[in-house]
């Protein structure tokens, strides 16, 4: 029986998840912890289905997703152009880099209380926190990516009459794309970490972070676990459907990054060297 690489990958991912689930279930069933604190998977599953089918969890997930996307897209709109400018213009780099270096190590959640004072409870705070969390991975990876663009591409494009605009869109962006995509991936992960935390502190009534925090008050561990499962599911779907696909149709197809050993193409070429 020969399965396609795609199918084999899915099967393998399934095995990993099943093993983790089995481990959790063993602990939950063992009686070492109170069942109300460590609910069994069937109980979490029933809660998950109930909350999904009456729509509440979907709405919470929707609110969280909207906040993530707004903050994430805002971070891309600022981070990618700024990262490119930093790599192209020394003056911008000199101005932005010290600021970024000082702001980067501050956990986004540490800003939540400050932002609540400034903007009040609600969406503004969560979106800004997501933006803050997603900005730096986007910025730094774009900056690095542009600096790794082969100067020969710029020279060749220049010789063929490319102006600044064409260089930007047709050489620098695709040339830096392996790094930019990595930056977006990291930024998206940071966005989720930030949004859930921010919702716990700053959201009112809607959002997965709020659900988790609210469930704690009533000792609803199964609701908490169900919400975590939804976050994990969304993350997994995005990785597979959005970032994985983006990578496959761009940098993998262009040979700018290589797939893991299983897919590697046989003909390896010596690295080109300049005498």
């Amino acid at each position, binding site marked *: 029986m020969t399965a396609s690489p795609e199918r084999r990958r899915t099967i393998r991912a399934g095995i990993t998840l099943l093993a983790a689930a089995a481990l959790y279930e063993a602990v939950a069933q063992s009686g070492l912890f109170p069942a109300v604190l460590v609910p069994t998977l069937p109980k979490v599953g029933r809660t998950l289905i109930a909350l999904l089918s009456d729509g509440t969890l979907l709405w919470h997930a929707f609110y969280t997703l909207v906040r993530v996307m707004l903050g994430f897209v805002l971070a891309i709109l600022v981070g990618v152009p700024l990262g490119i400018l930093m790599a192209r213009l020394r003056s911008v780099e000199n101005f932005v880099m010290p600021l970024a270096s000082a702001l980067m190590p501050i956990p986004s959640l540490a800003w939540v209380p400050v932002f609540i004072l400034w903007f009040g409870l609600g969406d503004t705070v969560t979106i800004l926190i997501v933006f803050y969390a997603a900005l730096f991975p986007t910025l730094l990876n774009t900056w690095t990516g542009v600096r790794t663009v*082969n100067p*020969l*591409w710029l*020279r*060749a*494009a*220049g*010789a*063929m*009459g*490319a*102006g600044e605009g*064409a260089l930007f869109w*047709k*050489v620098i962006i*695709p*040339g830096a*794309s392996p790094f930019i995509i990595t930056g977006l991936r990291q930024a998206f992960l940071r966005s989720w970490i930030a949004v859930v935390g921010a919702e716990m502190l700053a959201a009112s009534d809607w959002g997965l972070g709020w659900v988790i925090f609210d469930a704690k008050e009533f000792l609803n561990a199964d609701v908490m676990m169900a919400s975590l499962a939804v976050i994990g599911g969304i993350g997994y779907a995005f990785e597979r459907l959005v970032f994985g696909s983006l990578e496959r149709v*761009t940098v993998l*197809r*262009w*040979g*700018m990054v290589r797939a893991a050993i299983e897919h590697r*193409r046989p*003909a390896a*070429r010596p690295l*080109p*060297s*300049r*005498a």
Partner: protein
Amino acid sequence: MSNIEIRNVSLVYDTPSGSVQAVDDASLNIAASEFLCIVGPSGCGKSTLLNLIAGFLAATSGEIKIGGMPVTGHGMDRGVVFQDFAQLFPWRTALGNVAFGLEMKGVSKEEREKIALDHLALVRLEKFAHSYPHHLSGGMQQRVAIARALAYNPSVLLMDEPFAALDALTRDAMQRLVAEVWRATRKTVVYVTHNVAEAVYLADRVVVMTPHPGRVKIEVPITLPRPRDPLSVEFLQCQKDLLRHLGSEMVAPGEPEICKDGATQP
């Protein structure tokens, strides 16, 4: 096609350890549709001179004119082929790479793809039009680079050791291809190489440069009829003559054998 005039061109590099005279008072006239090879040992300034003609570098003094127009930067009257295979854009197919210059000129998509395909056919790669560079061999990538440099119809083609990183057999085939392409297009070609046999095979005239500082030592016309036979007595004699001019620069007296091997099989 345009002629190239190089008048008393010098270039001094400033490096942390002082200034280096890369090109010293070079003067050359290259006729329209002439195939000129520049040979010389590493560090003789031959690539620097090519980069000056390409407009990637600005001369410290002197002047370069192409078709009577002074060179002030890179321009679409020149096509450039580099040594490094990585010069192609990995995110574009062979066709997309070749069409790039036409795209910059504002030629319509349909038109530029037709022209690009014609140029891929010129280097016999029309079957690989839709392949990405990482699926092509080194020799094929260099052929795409040649097609790309020609597609927007520059009058001058500048080539900087385009086949130095290829194996000997592929290089021979590439040289035959370049000779064919030149015959078909009649571009003015400036071709930098350190391979004497390659220069004799391709050139109408060979310029020998010497290092420290980079100077034009001598110009040697190659009058052999084309297509040239690299095994003929006359061809080998030309090679010997050139090596003699190079030899005094490249080896100590009494070691002529090393010089020949070193120069013909770099």
